[in-house]
């Protein structure tokens, strides 16, 4: 059997906030249509790692990154690559649901398409992405209601629909369920498993059980270093590194 090529290949990635090194020589491979969960204590660099994957890290003043991030073989840090195009290929969902507050549900889902200058009717694409984010049935009769009229969990699924509408290859999620109640969280987790059929997903989470539930692979970061990256089952039943063991058993701090 041929070795499947990594969808995301991170090589010698270093990230800085001015002179502070936030990531130290990180190397990770993510297979297509798999979910990688990134875990670690606060300040370990997991969000920075995520933000390096779509070049959002450099939007912070003084923030820089070195090394390679290959998405489908193409280095997103190469000089001829437009960061805006990178962010189109690599969608992102944030911790707090952040729909555009003045826009309707429909317009939120279509926002990415508009920004990317897609001209024709969005109806079909909006429906598709709302279906993919498992929101369609709940909103199909009120597409022109304000996005803010939705519950928190629905708003988060709307943000996922907005990210999916531009048909990215990779979906990044930065604690997508940490502001949601357990039922809304379960729906997001179920959605992640469905999206895994089409997308490669990297999710940062503070909730270790969530990482255990949704991911195929888990990466444990500590103080800017990638300590261990292995199949999720291995990380939670028999990790190789003592620091991983101490973290997943709750012996830190």
């Amino acid at each position: 059997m041929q070795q499947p090529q990594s969808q995301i290949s991170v090589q010698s990635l270093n990230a800085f906030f001015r002179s502070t090194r936030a990531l130290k020589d990180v190397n990770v491979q993510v297979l297509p249509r798999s979910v990688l969960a990134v875990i670690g204590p606060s300040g370990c660099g997991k969000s920075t790692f995520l933000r390096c994957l779509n070049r959002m890290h450099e939007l912070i003043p003084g923030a820089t990154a070195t090394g390679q991030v290959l998405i489908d073989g193409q280095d997103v840090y190469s000089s001829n690559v437009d960061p805006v195009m990178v962010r189109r290929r690599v969608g992102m969902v944030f911790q707090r649901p952040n729909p555009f507050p003045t826009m309707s549900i429909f317009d939120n889902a279509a926002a990415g398409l508009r920004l990317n200058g897609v001209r024709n009717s969005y109806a079909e694409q909006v429906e598709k992405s709302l279906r993919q984010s498992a929101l369609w049935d709940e909103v199909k009769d009120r597409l022109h209601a304000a996005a803010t009229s939705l519950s928190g969990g629905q708003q988060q699924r709307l943000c996922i629909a907005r990210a999916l509408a531009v048909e990215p290859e990779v979906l990044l999620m930065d604690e997508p369920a940490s502001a949601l109640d357990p039922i809304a969280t379960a729906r997001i987790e179920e959605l992640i498993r469905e999206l895994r059929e089409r997308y490669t997903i990297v999710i940062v989470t503070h909730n270790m059980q969530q990482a255990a539930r949704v991911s195929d692979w888990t990466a444990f970061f500590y103080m800017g270093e990638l300590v261990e990256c292995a199949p999720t089952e291995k990380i939670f039943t028999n990790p190789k590194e003592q620091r991983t063991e101490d973290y997943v058993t709750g012996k830190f701090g």
Partner: protein
Amino acid sequence: MALAHTDRAYESELKDLREKLLSMGGKVEVAISRCVRSVTERDSDLAQKVKEGEREINRLEVEIDDACRRLLALRQPAASDLRFITTALKIVTDLERMGDLAVNIAQRAFDLNQAPPLRPFPDLTKLADLAQEQLKKALDAFVESDVQKAEEVMKGDELLDAIYKKLFNELLTFMMEDPRNIRRTTSLMFVAKHLERLGDHTTNVAEMVIYMVRGTDLRHPRSRQAELERQGRA
């Protein structure tokens, strides 16, 4: 030094579970030693004590099961904690079975002690000594997370089986020599069989200790190998 859990209540729940298991293991050791002596020393009082002690062993089994379920439900244990708790759940069953075997042996002692003594069988003493030694070693391996000791237990079981086989043949011959011995010798055969089974449960404990420490499952290597080969062909 190994780090403690940040959540001290969790740390102490795990410690309680460990102590309960040790206490149960200790009680099983005592029961086995007593039931063996109730046969070899023809002491029915000891056999009675074994019967009475069973309740305590059963109570601990239920308590340990409860504690494991509570930890799994409320603490979502991971890695070595998870392996420790699942090991506890499994070895508690083996320990409880060992307690039952001790009672079975004690039961035989009542019968044997009411009849005139048979000639001594040195291999029975050997079998009983080794079975107890094995059990002690397996429990030590658990307490000390000692893989080497656990492996010694697994090896030791082969010797135990060999002694059992030899003793079985001896007893069979003894019965054939004089049919009047059959009833009493059958009781001794049961005692020997129970000791051999005790060795199997001890081996289970040793295997689980290796799983707990290393995270690798050593059980049933042949059937798993066959399964792998089957999948390879499919």
